[in-house]
């Protein structure tokens, strides 16, 4: 379809605010006399607090409160400002006994589908180095830090289970008393009969693959401030992807009524899933309550944020694939062990979500996925861009390459033989593939990287520097349907001049959603971008309900609500114009700020005139607004592919990316410039995942070794090659304006494509990432290459 604004690289609505320093983030707001909160982290990975003495800390001038797991119930009294927190003040709830889940999922009315509740605000049992034992509130940061050092804690140190193997060993101590065998979840699936499918196959090929723990490293650390307002409600300003969910979880963690919590989310300095979790807000509120509701700021340092928020789950996979001589896969059997760290967070759903999205790429007669998610005494793993898919696609797309090599088949042809077709209905989710351009994406990527020429050129190489090309595909989803609720809200108010305010529950965290939503509104209402004012700040008291930014859901799911809200406004404008002109509304349209005849385009009346009338007509005045909610009970499956060319320095183990292209089928691209930005960032993160990033821990003690931006090897501009982004645009019939998701997908396939390119160059298969120089060098020694 031909659009006026959708599909154009219009300027980001927040670009000017951000280049001038006017965009305000959480820490840029402050309250007078704001106190500072700091956390006492456990130095042990697994330990029980035997005794804790806070008297010296409390005596330090400037210290306003010291909290431990023991003190939490006392908050009830500290906050017994009349009715501040009724439930607590009446002793109905013992906060110290309140466990809660932190994952940023919509609440489920079905109890069996709720997130695992395994966390206390402060704990007596430390489950990872960094766990929250106590907290201090003081007049400034320096005093708070000093006070932390004055807290005397005696620990009984337990065996630290720093790997899934250790946690799964028979007789291993339990990390959570109610979790036998330290297994948090084991929710897989089976389609068809895998044993038979493997038996019937000409070949059964096996492989083992492993990914590491990495961290989001959004540039803005977790930060919030909280206070009790004059209306006796708890107000939290926080850097979050999910304000409405923060509201619920804070209330749950304190056992109070949800409506007493108000969450405000200003501009956010990146999230990548780490802020789809409730890491600091409950403690921040507890801190404020401990000082009579005065404002308290809680800001994590980079070193804290890298271990005491969330990480990406490390996975170990074993894959068995039955395949025939013609390259057609009969059955796939995947077992996986996922390391979720000390608390559940999203752990119970990440393995199954990754396994679920994997099904949309290569449907087979038989597919069995058996993941287990294991607690260990390492930092908590949670949501991170891709949510389980970077792991499973690294494993399977590496495996696919191994199969192609073994069967001496072309890696592209073997994939094409097994790719999904439009019309395929997933047996388990019942999602139907309504659009799929993965084949066109592959063809485009093949051309961009000059695959055939390079394949031939790099065939027989020796010497110290060897080059190779590799590729990998992926499938994803647009939101979480049917696993979870996909509700989104949008509200539009038309001003007297025909311009509008757009209010959303969906959150801008850098990805550009405010801009694409504004484009959608401008498109429907026939007004230019500058007449759409997006209220970027979410405030749970004011903004419509939407669960937030995650699962690459907003352009698709929240976009549906935005389109619906804009269509309602348009309908009202045309109805009003009809009242003014007697021309039937169905003959009218809005274009370039005029109500026009739909077929001829002839101008009937200026939008501004209609808008003015809607405010001030002495008989018919009724300002034009809409306030809609949309429950998306549908999903669209995006696809894509990475093509990479590498040069491997055999002697040093250094891998250099010469060229890399990501080609995406994300349906209609609303804003090409912004879409390319999403791809660049995702690929860059994928390159880090493949080559350099890994959070390291001492195996014995579980102590983090590189939780800072110097030792954790985040790609710098020097490490990042030119990244090519391309799209095959075919509108998906289910999405607003034909869109499918794009936010997370770019990170899914770069790592296996790079791994496959290294395999092509060196004939050495790396089944473990990152492929950093140390590992590559060791592997080359092991395989006799050096």
């Amino acid at each position: 379809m031909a659009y006026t604004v959708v599909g154009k690289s219009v300027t980001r609505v927040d670009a000017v605010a951000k280049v001038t320093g006017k965009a305000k983030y959480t820490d840029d707001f402050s309250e007078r006399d704001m106190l500072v909160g700091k956390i006492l982290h456990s130095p042990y990975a697994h330990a029980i607090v035997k005794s804790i003495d806070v008297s010296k800390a409390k005596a330090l001038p400037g210290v306003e409160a010291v909290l431990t797991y023991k003190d939490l119930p006392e908050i009830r009294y500290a906050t017994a400002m009349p009715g501040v927190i009724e439930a607590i003040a009446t002793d109905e709830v013992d906060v110290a006994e309140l466990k809660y889940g932190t994952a940023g999922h919509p609440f489920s009315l079905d109890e069996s589908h709720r997130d695992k509740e395994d966390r206390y605000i402060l704990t007596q049992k430390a489950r990872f180095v960094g766990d929250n034992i106590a907290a201090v509130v003081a007049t400034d940061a320096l005093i708070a830090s000093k006070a932390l050092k004055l807290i005397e804690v005696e620990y009984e140190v337990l065996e630290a289970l720093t790997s899934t193997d250790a946690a799964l060993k028979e007789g291993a101590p339990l990390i959570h008393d109610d979790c036998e065998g330290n297994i948090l979840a084991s929710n897989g699936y089976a389609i068809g009969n895998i044993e038979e499918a493997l038996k019937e196959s000409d070949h059964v090929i096996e492989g083992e693959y492993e990914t590491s723990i990495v961290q989001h490293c959004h540039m803005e650390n977790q930060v919030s401030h909280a206070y009790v307002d004059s209306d006796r409600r708890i107000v939290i300003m926080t850097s979050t992807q999910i304000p409405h969910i923060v509201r619920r979880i804070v209330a749950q963690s304190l056992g109070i009524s949800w409506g007493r919590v108000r969450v405000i989310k200003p501009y956010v300095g990146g999230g990548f899933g780490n802020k789809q979790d409730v890491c600091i807000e409950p403690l921040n509120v507890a801190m404020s309550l401990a000082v009579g509701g005065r404002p308290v700021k809680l800001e994590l340092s980079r070193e804290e944020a890298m271990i005491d928020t969330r990480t990406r789950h490390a996975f170990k996979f074993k894959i068995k694939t039955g395949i025939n001589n013609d390259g057609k896969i009969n059955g796939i059997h995947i077992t996986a062990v996922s390391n979720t760290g000390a608390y559940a967070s999203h752990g119970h759903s990440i393995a199954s979500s990754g396994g679920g999205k994997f099904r949309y790429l290569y449907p087979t007669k038989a597919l069995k996925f058996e993941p287990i998610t294991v607690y260990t005494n390492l930092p908590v793993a949670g949501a991170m861009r891709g949510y389980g898919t970077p792991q499973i696609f690294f494993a399977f797309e590496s495996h696919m390459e191994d199969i192609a090599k073994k069967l001496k088949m072309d890696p592209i042809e073997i994939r094409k033989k097994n790719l999904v077709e439009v019309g395929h209905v997933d047996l388990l989710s019942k999602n139907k593939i309504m659009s799929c351009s993965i084949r066109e994406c592959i063809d485009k990527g093949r051309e961009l990287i000059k695959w055939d020429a390079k394949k031939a050129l790099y065939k027989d190489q020796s010497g110290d520097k060897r080059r190779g090309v590799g590729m990998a595909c992926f499938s994803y989803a647009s939101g979480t349907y049917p696993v979870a609720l996909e509700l989104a809200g949008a509200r539009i108010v038309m001003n007297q001049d025909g311009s509008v305010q757009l209010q959303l529950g969906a959150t801008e965290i850098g990805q550009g959603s405010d801009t694409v939503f504004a484009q959608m509104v401008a498109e429907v209402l026939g007004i230019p971008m500058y007449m759409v004012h997006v209220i970027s700040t979410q405030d749970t008291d004011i903004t419509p309900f939407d669960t937030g930014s995650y699962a690459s859901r907003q352009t698709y799911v929240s976009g549906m609500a935005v389109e619906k809200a804009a269509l309602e406004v348009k309908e009202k404008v045309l109805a009003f114009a009809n009242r003014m002109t007697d021309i039937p509304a169905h003959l009218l349209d809005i274009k370039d700020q005029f109500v026009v005849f739909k077929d001829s385009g002839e101008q009937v009346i200026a939008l501004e005139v209609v808008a003015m009338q809607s405010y001030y007509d002495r008989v018919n005045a009724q300002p034009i607004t809409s306030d809609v909610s949309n429950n998306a009970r549908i999903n669209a499956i995006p696809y894509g592919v990475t093509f990479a060319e590498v040069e491997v320095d055999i002697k040093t183990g250094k891998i250099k990316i010469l060229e890399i292209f990501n080609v995406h089928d994300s349906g209609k691209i609303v804003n090409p410039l912004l879409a390319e930005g999403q791809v660049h960032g995702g690929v860059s993160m994928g390159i880090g995942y493949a080559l350099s990033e890994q959070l390291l821990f001492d195996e014995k003690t579980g102590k983090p070794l590189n939780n800072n931006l110097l030792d954790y090897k985040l790609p710098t501009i020097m490490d990042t090659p030119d990244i090519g982004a391309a799209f095959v645009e075919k509108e998906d019939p289910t999405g607003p304006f034909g869109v499918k998701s794009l936010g997370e997908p770019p990170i899914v396939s770069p790592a296996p494509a790079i791994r496959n390119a290294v395999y092509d160059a060196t004939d050495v298969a790396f089944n473990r990432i990152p492929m950093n120089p140390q590992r590559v060098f060791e592997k080359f020694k092991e395989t006799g290459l050096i």
Partner: protein
Amino acid sequence: MFKRIAFTVNGKAYNFEVDVRESLLDVLRSHLGFTGAKQGCGVGECGACSVLIDGVPYDTCIYLAVWADGKDIKTIEGVAEKNGELSDVQKAFVEEGAVQCGFCTPGLVLTTTALKESGKDYTREELKRELSGHLCRCTGYQSILKAAEKSLEGHVCTCVDSPHYKGK
């Protein structure tokens, strides 16, 4: 311990006492309200807190406020014209899509501004090295590099082995 210092920020003179332990970032953000400088790491790793001190980019999180005595400081708030018109560097960042979450943006705009004001020529590799003190997790640096090159138009090397080589 407090010490009286005098400096200018974006052309305006300031003269007051600072705690000798305070970083320039603390003073700029908390006392003077220049919140455009961001704290991403607090230890000089990420570059989000950069400002120009006598025209040179510094990480203010590891620059003591007392060292700023007598200096001329430019923050992101002082880059645009007084009438609100964006500088060429800011325009380039907007037009090239170099802004996503925006947390690293002020620092990068300032460093690019310093490079532009230096009047020197840069190859792409040199430019990357100059910008490598700024970490960004959103953009993969692609559009940032483009914006920097656009800002430095006429000062980016176009010799034969450069990606900017125009050919004959």
